[in-house]
């Protein structure tokens, strides 16, 4: 056996939250077998417990559920629940992981999730999924959509397991799934790499108790509040107080509970709480506009992409109040909660609220230390996983990677990025073993579909999400009266995994050849249902969805009768269309196994290296003469690493990598083609060159914003942070600098730029610390609006204060005044806390000017990818697809996506590389059959369709001497613009033929 063969093509993922699930899904797509180890009884983690997700306020579980189902049914992901890692021997390529698994006491294969056991069990237990706000019984499932779908028995509470009595559940189970003979097991798994994604832990009760939690029932944690807001929560989405069930009229959010507080042991910032408070407050306002909401905060840290806009909306559109003060006391006063806090002038204020939400921070997981010992990795001082700026996803043990909040507090998109990135790292380490351990998914042969439509209709209640408004039984009854409908049911959560099995059984039992699900949106859920049909031997295109959630229960929440009537209309229309549905073949297009990376900065180089290390050729194109981008101008890094050596090492590897071809002084011209088959013109120093590649990574970067204010350009004493960095590299000169005033947000956050540039606060702290190192007596003032040293960066903010750097808050409406008069520069500002005017004549005024993207309009146009209003590339889904663009085969990372520090750019670059390698690894892409198709006989070759297609998916070809339009299936997104504009109606859309749509419209008028 040679060395290569011994590398194992399996990966262990520890922790089944969103990060672990994402890593598992991507690894399985990349060609690796995954063991997904989860210590609780179901995967989904914290995201499954959230109501909505910021900043788009998508329903959290709605966007997570398809991933749960996908992970649950993948033949290449083995989910091990109630399981923990017990030991990890060996080394990268060849680990043996011992996993300890506690029994569920309910056989996963036999359980039908009917719920009878729960109904009969006499033991009430606190419902952990609902944060203890509801009760369940010892045998249960965490939530309806939970994966695995089977129930389990809470071993701590079960009477039989603790007192050997009862066993009442055993005879109630028709499926005979309850099995008290199950024993704990130990599994020895051979894996080549390990990804740790155990998530985060809970802030201790004694910290919460300081704010009355535990004593006053209407003081709740933010996680409890998520459940209270959630349609599937204990109050079914009605925002009510735990004490008396009344609607709170005044709600306060208290930020930094268990964060930025050395008394709690957590000196860091939890990064996500400001945004989730803004989200929660906004949602409450949407439900009950007359609610009065105040958020008490220290610094509003809404530094992510689009976050500041959310905060601004919260204040301006929803009237949410923001008070910069940490609440000192919480008292119960009659039915109300009295908060005592200092206003800006320092006066002690008392204000009464009906409910207080504690914005609890993210702590390291409770078992972090034991996990670290077991996995042989080191932790940082806060018991999070120790990583480095240049290697944000590597633990201290080779072959063991980290993703998600265990690496440091972070939100869902960042966790998802890290998950994909860590999967890419595993892919780099194990690329020789790709495909070695996976099972290829086989579908049963497609059934012949006869002329006679036999339609099954499944109406989903989605808890009260739909069922609370739409009368589901009535819709079911109605559906069953429609012609060709031979089956209708309304008792299930359509998207849960066990329902998929029921659908398969139903298809066989009733010999169905069309299936309609009346539920939520096909945007997130259609692919999953189509997969179910395929599993049952039906062509995926024999499926139709009626969106009775978004279009009925959500928009007509207060008109149940009308919503129900509309749901019936939608079902009738879907049935009319379904009668005409025809099976369509799935097309497959080969992929050129090469990547094009545009931009040679840190992000671009990282992405190129990862792709090359995963075994694929890569073109790295840089418009300037050198690689390195902004890193070339950075002299120091906050965490202490040397940027020059980081750059040198990276550049060396890029230049010498046999699979990377570097083009400097090269500009990307026209890009044609589609995923798997791009052709790109490169304008090199030596002329035009065309390269062929399967994927594109956009790493085009950004640069310092140019300001014309605060005397910049008028006085040499007014410089940017980057220029200061240059000055500080001259130690002699730096030692002569005695007084500096730094002005944050110079140009950002609603000035020239609407957004927060995320890196400037850390940058100012870094340069301030550097100057203090060189000249400890230097007086440094940092004038800020919010200090956004999120995550562990907070430690450096603390260090800067300790060393005497003075931070002074200013308001946007009243910025500091700089007068630059030749050699002398003067700054005037007000200390708002003392209400004192301060005038200084510093040696330097340093502007934190923010980041703008490089000019990419032409590139965006040729690739037909969208930009945000600020000219950053707009990802396909801000939450769950943070590196993919809407155009298949195009990915984004680094500053081209949004301003971010180096470690985040590296994580994202790894993620982009990970996603890009999926089609490269597969060697083909399958194309959804809903593409357009041109009837060549009817086509008159006018070219209207070609000119209108936003995806370059139609071209004109000569056939028999005549011009005819032709669809490039792999590029087509099925948008239908061509079909709707074709003057001869020569174009029809798969799954949306004119006949089908006309039938639907006719059915609308039929009732």
């Amino acid at each position, binding site marked *: 056996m040679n060395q290569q063969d011994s590398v194992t093509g399996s990966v262990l993922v520890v922790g089944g939250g969103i990060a672990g699930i994402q890593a598992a899904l991507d690894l399985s797509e990349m060609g690796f077998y995954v063991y997904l180890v989860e210590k609780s009884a179901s995967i989904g983690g914290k995201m499954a417990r959230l109501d909505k997700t910021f900043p788009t306020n998508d329903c959290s579980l709605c966007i997570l559920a398809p991933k749960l189902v996908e992970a649950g049914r993948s033949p290449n992901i083995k989910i091990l629940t109630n399981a923990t890692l017990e030991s990890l021997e060996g080394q990268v390529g060849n680990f043996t992981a011992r996993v300890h698994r506690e029994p569920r006491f309910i056989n996963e294969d036999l359980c039908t999730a009917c719920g009878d056991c729960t109904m009969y069990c006499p033991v009430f237990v606190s419902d952990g999924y609902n944060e203890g706000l509801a009760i369940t019984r010892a045998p249960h499932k965490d939530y309806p959509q939970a994966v695995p779908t089977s129930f389990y028995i809470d071993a701590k509470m079960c009477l039989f397991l603790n007192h050997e009595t009862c066993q009442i559940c055993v005879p109630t189970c028709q499926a005979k799934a309850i099995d008290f003979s199950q024993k704990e097991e130990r599994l020895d798994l051979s894996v080549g790499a390990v990804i740790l994604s155990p998530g985060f832990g809970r802030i201790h009760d004694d910290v919460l108790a300081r704010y009355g939690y535990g004593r006053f029932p209407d003081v709740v944690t933010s996680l409890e509040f998520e459940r209270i807001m959630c349609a599937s929560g204990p109050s079914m989405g009605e925002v009510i107080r735990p004490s008396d069930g009344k609607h709170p009229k005044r709600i306060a959010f208290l930020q930094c509970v268990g964060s930025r*507080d050395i008394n709690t042991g957590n000196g860091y910032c939890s990064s996500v709480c400001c945004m989730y408070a803004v989200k929660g407050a906004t949602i409450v306002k949407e439900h009950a506009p007359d609610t009065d909401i105040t958020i008490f905060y220290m610094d509003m840290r809404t530094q992510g992409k689009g976050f500041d806009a959310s905060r601004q909306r919260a204040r301006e559109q929803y009237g949410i109040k923001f008070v910069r*003060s940490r609440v*000192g006391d919480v008292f119960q006063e009659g039915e109300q909660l009295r908060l005592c806090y*200092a206003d800006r002038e*320092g006066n002690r204020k008392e204000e009464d609220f009906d409910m207080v939400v504690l914005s609890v921070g993210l702590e390291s997981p409770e078992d972090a230390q034991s996990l670290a010992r077991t996995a042989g990795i080191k932790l940082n001082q806060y018991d999070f996983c120790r990583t480095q700026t240049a290697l944000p996803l590597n633990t201290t043990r080779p072959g063991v990677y980290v993703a998600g909040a265990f690496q440091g507090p972070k939100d869902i998109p960042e966790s998802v990025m890290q998950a994909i990135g860590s999967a890419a790292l595993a892919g780099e380490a194990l690329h020789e073993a790709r495909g070695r351990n996976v099972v290829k998914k086989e579908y049963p042969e497609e059934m012949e579909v006869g002329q006679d439509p036999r339609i099954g209709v499944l109406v989903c209640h989605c808890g009260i999400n739909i069922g609370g408004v739409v009368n589901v039984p009535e819709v079911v009854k109605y559906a069953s009266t429609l012609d060709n409908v031979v089956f209708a049911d309304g008792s299930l959560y359509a998207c849960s995994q066990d329902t998929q099995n029921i659908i398969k059984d139903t298809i066989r039992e009733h010999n169905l050849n069309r299936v309609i699900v009346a539920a939520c949106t096909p945007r997130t859920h259609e692919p999953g249902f189509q997969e179910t049909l395929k599993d049952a031997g039906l062509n995926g295109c024999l499926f139709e969805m009626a969106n009775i959630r978004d279009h009925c229960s959500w928009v007509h929440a207060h008109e149940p009768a009308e919503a129900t009537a509309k749901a019936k209309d939608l079902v009738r229309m879907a049935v009319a269309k379904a009668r005409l549905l025809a099976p369509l073949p799935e097309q497959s297009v080969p992929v050129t196994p090469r990547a094009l990376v545009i931009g040679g900065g840190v992000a671009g180089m990282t992405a190129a290296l990862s792709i090359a290390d995963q075994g694929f050729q890569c073109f790295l194109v840089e418009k300037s003469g050198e690689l390195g981008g902004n890193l070339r101008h950075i002299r120091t890094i906050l965490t202490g690493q040397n940027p020059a050596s980081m750059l040198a090492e990276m550049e060396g590897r890029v230049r010498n990598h046999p699979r990377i071809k570097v083009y400097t002084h090269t500009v990307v011209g026209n890009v044609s083609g589609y995923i798997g088959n791009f052709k790109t013109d490169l304008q090199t120093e030596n002329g035009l060159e065309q390269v062929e590649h399967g994927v594109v990574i956009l790493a085009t970067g950004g640069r310092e914003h140019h300001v014309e204010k605060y005397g910049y350009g008028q006085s040499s004493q007014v410089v940017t942070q980057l220029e200061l960095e240059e000055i500080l590299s001259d130690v002699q000169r730096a030692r002569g600098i005695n007084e500096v005033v730094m002005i944050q947000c110079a140009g950002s956050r609603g000035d020239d730029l609407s957004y927060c540039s995320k890196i400037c606060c850390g940058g100012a702290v870094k340069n301030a610390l550097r100057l203090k190192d060189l000249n400890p007596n230097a007086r440094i003032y940092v004038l800020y609006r919010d200090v956004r040293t999120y995550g562990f960066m907070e430690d450096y903010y603390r260090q800067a204060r*300790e060393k*005497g750097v*003075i931070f002074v808050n200013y308001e946007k409406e009243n910025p500091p005044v700089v007068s630059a008069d030749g050699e002398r520069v003067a700054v005037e500002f007000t*200390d708002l806390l003392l209400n004192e005017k301060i005038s200084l004549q510093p040696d330097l005024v340093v502007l934190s000017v923010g980041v703008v993207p490089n000019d990419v309009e032409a590139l965006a146009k040729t690739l037909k990818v969208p930009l945000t209003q600020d000219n950053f590339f707009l990802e396909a889904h801000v939450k769950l697809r943070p590196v993919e663009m809407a155009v298949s085969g195009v990915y984004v990372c680094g500053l081209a996506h949004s301003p971010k520090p180096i470690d985040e750019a590296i994580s994202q670059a790894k993620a982009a590389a990970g996603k890009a390698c999926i089609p490269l690894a597969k060697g083909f892409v399958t194309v959804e059959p809903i593409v357009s198709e041109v009837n060549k006989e009817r086509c008159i070759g006018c070219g209207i369709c070609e000119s209108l297609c936003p995806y370059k998916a139609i071209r004109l070809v000569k056939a028999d001497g005549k011009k005819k339009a032709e669809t490039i299936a792999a590029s087509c997104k099925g948008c239908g613009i061509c079909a709707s504009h074709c003057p001869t109606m020569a174009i029809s859309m798969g799954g949306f033929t004119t006949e089908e749509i006309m039938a639907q419209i006719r059915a609308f008028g039929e009732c």
Partner: protein
Amino acid sequence: MYEDLARIANHCLTCGTCSGRCASGGLDGLDPRKILRMLVYGQTEKLASSRWPWVCTQCGRCVVACPEGVDLVAIGKALKGMRPRNKVPGSLHKGVEQVLKVGNNIGAPKDEYLMVMEEVGEELAEECCPGFKTPIDVVGAEYLFFPNSKELSGEPDDMKWWWKVFYAGKLSWTVPSENWESVDWGLFTGNMEASRKIAQYKVDNAKKLKVKYIIAPDCAGGSFGFRLNYEQYFKPELNAQGIELVYIYDVLMRLFKEGRIKVDKSRNPELVTYHDPCKHGRELERASWHPYYDEARWIISQCCDDFVELASNKRDAFCCGAGSGAWAGPYLDAKIHCGRLKAEQIKKSGAKVVVTSCSNCRDQIMKVLAKEYKLDIKVKYIWQLVAESLVLE
């Protein structure tokens, strides 16, 4: 010194927790956060010459909640120390001079002191404790007790509660004949040198009288000043001689637990609450020493059934408004202002009896808060509550 203060203040995040929790804030337009801010800008002298350090009661309520652990109490103490001694407000520094010269704050001569002590003892014997004689300089006594000069000069009868309890419990105890002052105005004036000397007197007495236990002297500030010096300078030396420091709670609990005293709960039918003296609780906890929260409540529960907690208690208790020497200081307006939140909580609790275990707290609540805020309450020492409940056999 100035730089040290700025260094402590530099940690401040300006979150305002301190000012939101402070009962002194608002006086003279100042509050804890402003103090820190002024220090950051180097306005130390302006602060040292302001009234703030003397009206801030250094209760530590701000510090326990500060997310950066900024020690505003240490700052206050240091600012007090910066004041020229002849500018120390009121009689505080004169008291320090007296205690250093004659061993007590009021400058009472030894014969006068002994006369009062003996007379009070005789009265007590007549009233209810047959055979009682004030134990002065009893070598080999188990406990050493220091009288508070305030009681000696103004309220000598108040000493009887203690003595009655000791008598009932057949405790072996003594008071010293010299250098007997219990309180520590060195601590209150930021004069830690004096504080150490005052502690030295107590240590010398303990050694001379060969006692086993020093009862941490009243007021709570006195106990805290002694504790600081005890821990820093004297502990090993005393412990080597078998001498330990105990708190009044330890003594009372011992008497109860060993069945040496009996009480009649029916004498205390009214609703009782407890005021936690900062320096018997929070400040001990802050110094990582055991805080006497639960002990106080246990002792009260032996004497009455009807007890209510104040809204803020234990670690979060509000100061009476006159801590750290403010009681002895000249600023009545400040005492009224700083005690308002305590008064409000007492009123809301509905308690008719406020028990506490510090003479400063007791006087402030009884003589200032009850009057200014029209509180219909009785204020009692915890040992008074025990003494009044005693069933003497």
